[in-house]
C-alpha cells in the first residue's frame, strides 16, 4: 500500500521505536545457539573466516536464522559435464536440467561452450528437444527473423512518415547503439558490423514486440549476448528469451522496478537494520541508486568477462527468480562499513556507490549473495512481500557426484 511506501521514504530521522525490537547479535554468538540451520554447515576454510569481517546477523522480530559461511565457487561447467547431461539424442531430462541449473549456479560456464549453452539458458533452445527437432526449430526461427526484419526494412518513406511510434523508437535505437559499449573492442569502430547488428536486432525486436518496443537499457543487455553469439539471428532469439524473463522491468508503468527496489529495501531492513537506519538518517534509504544495478543486471558495474559469469548465475533461476536482489544486497553489505563514515552525507554515499563501478570483486560477492539468499530462505515465516523471492524449500548446495 502506498501509505507504508511513503513511510519508508520519508521516515523521520529521530524515530527509535524500531530499535527496541531489534536485537543485534554477531554471528558467533548465534552459532552456538544452534537455531535452524537447514543445510549442513560447511567446514570453514581460512579464507572464508576472513569474509566474516562484518557479519551482523540480526533478529528482526526473531526472523533471521544464522548465516552459514560462504561456499567457495566451483570451477566452470566443462564441455564433458555438459555432454553428460544430454541424452544420446540430444535431449536433457527434467532431472538433468535441474542438476545443470544447480551446477551453473555454483560455478558458471566454461567460455568455450557458452555460445551453445546460453541458447538453452535463455530459452532459445528447448531442453526437451532432440538434436533433430532443435535443428528444425532453429531453421524456422531463422525464417521468422528474416520475415520480421524485412517488415521494417521494407517500410516506404511515406509509411515511416505516418508512423510516429516507429520513428521515435527507431531514432532511439540508432542514438543508443552508437553509445553502447564503444570502449569494448568489438563495438569500437563506427563501421563495426556488430554495431549494425545491434541496430538490426533491436529494430526487429520492435516489430516482434511492438507493445514493449525499445526501452533504454536493452542495448546494454543485448551487446553481451551478441559478443557471445557472434550471429544476428541467434542473438535475436536469445535476446527474446531474456526479455521473456525480465520484460517486466521495462514496462511503461515501471511498477515492477518500484516493487523490486521496495523488496531490496525490505531485505536490507531485515538483514542489516543498523545500516538501513543509517541510510535513513542520510536520506538515502530509498535505494533509488540501485535502479541502474537492477534494471540492467549490474551491466555498468562489471567488465564483460565478469558479466557473463554473473548473468549465467542469474539466468539459472536456481535459488531465486530475482537473484539480482540478493547480489545487490551482497554489494551493500560488503560496502556498508566504508559508507558508515560519520562525515559521509547523502552525496558522499551516492558518490561511493557510483565509484564502485568496475571495482568490485565478483567471486566474493557471489559467495556472499548465496549466503544471504540461503539465510533468508531458511526463515520460517517470511514477510509476504519477500516470499516470491526465494524458492521454498531451497535446493541444497550443489556437490559433485563423486565427492560424497
Amino acid at each position, binding site marked *: 500500500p502506498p501509505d507504508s511506501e511513503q513511510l519508508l521514504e520519508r521516515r523521520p530521522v529521530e524515530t527509535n521505536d524500531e530499535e527496541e525490537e531489534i536485537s543485534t547479535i554477531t554471528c558467533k554468538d548465534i552459532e552456538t545457539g544452534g537455531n535452524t540451520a537447514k543445510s549442513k554447515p560447511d567446514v570453514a576454510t581460512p579464507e572464508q573466516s576472513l569474509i566474516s569481517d562484518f557479519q551482523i546477523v540480526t533478529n528482526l522480530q526473531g526472523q533471521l536464522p544464522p548465516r552459514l559461511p560462504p561456499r567457495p565457487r566451483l570451477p566452470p561447467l566443462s564441455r564433458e559435464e555438459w555432454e553428460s547431461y544430454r541424452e544420446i539424442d540430444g535431449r536433457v531430462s527434467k532431472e538433468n536440467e535441474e542438476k545443470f541449473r544447480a551446477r551453473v549456479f555454483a560455478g558458471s560456464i566454461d567460455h568455450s561452450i557458452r555460445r551453445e549453452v546460453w541458447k538453452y539458458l535463455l530459452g532459445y533452445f528447448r531442453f526437451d528437444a532432440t538434436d533433430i527437432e532443435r535443428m528444425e526449430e532453429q531453421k524456422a526461427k531463422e525464417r521468422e527473423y528474416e520475415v520480421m526484419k524485412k517488415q521494417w526494412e521494407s517500410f516506404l518513406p511515406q509509411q515511416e512518415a505516418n508512423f510516429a511510434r516507429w520513428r521515435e523508437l527507431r531514432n532511439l535505437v540508432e*542514438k543508443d547503439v552508437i553509445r553502447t559499449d564503444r570502449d569494448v573492442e568489438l563495438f569500437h569502430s563506427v563501421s563495426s558490423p556488430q554495431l549494425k547488428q545491434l541496430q538490426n536486432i533491436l529494430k526487429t525486436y520492435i516489430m516482434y514486440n511492438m507493445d514493449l518496443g525499445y526501452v533504454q537499457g536493452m*542495448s546494454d543487455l543485448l551487446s553481451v549476448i551478441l559478443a557471445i553469439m557472434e550471429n544476428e539471428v541467434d542473438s535475436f532469439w536469445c535476446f527474446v528469451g531474456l526479455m521473456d524473463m525480465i520484460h517486466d522491468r521495462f514496462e511503461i508503468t*515501471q511498477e515492477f522496478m518500484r516493487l523490486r527496489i521496495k523488496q531490496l529495501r525490505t531485505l536490507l531492513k531485515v538483514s542489516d537494520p543498523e545500516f538501513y537506519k543509517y541510510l535513513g538518517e542520510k536520506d538515502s534509504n530509498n535505494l533509488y541508486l540501485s535502479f541502474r544495478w537492477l534494471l540492467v543486471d549490474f551491466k555498468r558495474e562489471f567488465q564483460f568477462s565478469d558479466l557473463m559469469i554473473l548473468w549465467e548465475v542469474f539466468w539459472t533461476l536456481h535459488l531465486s527468480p530475482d537473484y539480482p536482489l540478493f547480489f545487490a544486497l551482497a554489494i551493500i553489505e560488503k560496502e556498508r562499513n566504508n559508507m558508515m563514515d560519520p562525515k559521509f552525507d547523502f552525496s558522499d554515499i551516492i558518490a561511493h556507490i557510483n565509484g564502485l563501478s568496475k571495482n568490485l570483486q565478483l567471486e566474493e560477492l557471489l559467495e556472499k549473495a548465496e549466503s544471504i539468499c540461503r539465510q533468508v530462505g531458511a526463515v520460517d515465516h517470511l514477510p509476504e512481500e519477500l516470499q516470491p523471492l526465494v524458492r521454498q524449500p531451497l535446493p541444497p548446495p550443489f556437490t559433485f557426484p563423486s565427492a560424497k
Partner: protein
Amino acid sequence: MARATDKKYDHLFQLLLCGDSSVGKTCLISRFADNEFRHTHINTIGIDFKLKLFTIRDKKIRMQIWDTAGQERYETLTAQYYRKAQGIILVYDITREETFRNVTKWLRNIEDHGVKGVKIILIGNKVDLESERKISTRHGQKLANQHNIKFFETSAWKDINVTEAFTELAEQILAKVESGGGRDRGSSSIRESAIKLHEQQPTPATKSHGGCCSGGSSN
C-alpha cells in the same frame, strides 16, 4: 560543534538536467564538473549523479548534479528527483527539431513534479554542429522569454557557454537562498509533510531558517 568545520562548503545546491534522449545532458555535466568530453558516450540509465565544488562571490557551493535518462519511460523514477531540485537545466539539441518541440512537455513535467519557484535554464546544445542547425537562436530565445527563463546556446564538445549556464543557475539559486526566499533543499511538498509530521509528534520543529548552513538534515 565540530560539524561546521567539517563542512568544506557554504551551500549545497541540487540541480537536475532534463530533456530528450541524446541531447547532451551527460556531456554538459562532464564538461562542467570534470572539464572533459568523451567521444564514446553511454546513455544514462535511470538517474546518475555528479558532484562539483564551485565558488561564486566567495561562497563555496557544493553542487549535486542529477543527470536523468531522456526516455519518457523513466519519468516515474526521475520525478522523485524533481521534487528535490532547486535548479533545473532543460536541454534540447539545436540540430533536432523534435527535441525542441518537446521542451514544452518537459516544462510541464517540471511544473507537475518540481518545487514552486524552482529556477530553470533553457539550453540549446550542440552549437558546434552549426551546419546541421534546425532551431535558430531567435526561436530558442523566444521560447525562453515566453516562459521567463534564461537561455543559453552551448557546446559541450567545444566548451562554449557551459560554465556560463551553470553559473547563471547557481547565481539565481544563491540570490534566492540569500534573500531568504529558499533553502538549500526542500520543496513545498516536503516542507508540508515535515510540518504535518511535526504536528503529530510534538518535537521542536525545525523552523524555516533564512540561511542554509545551520546544520540539520538540509545540509
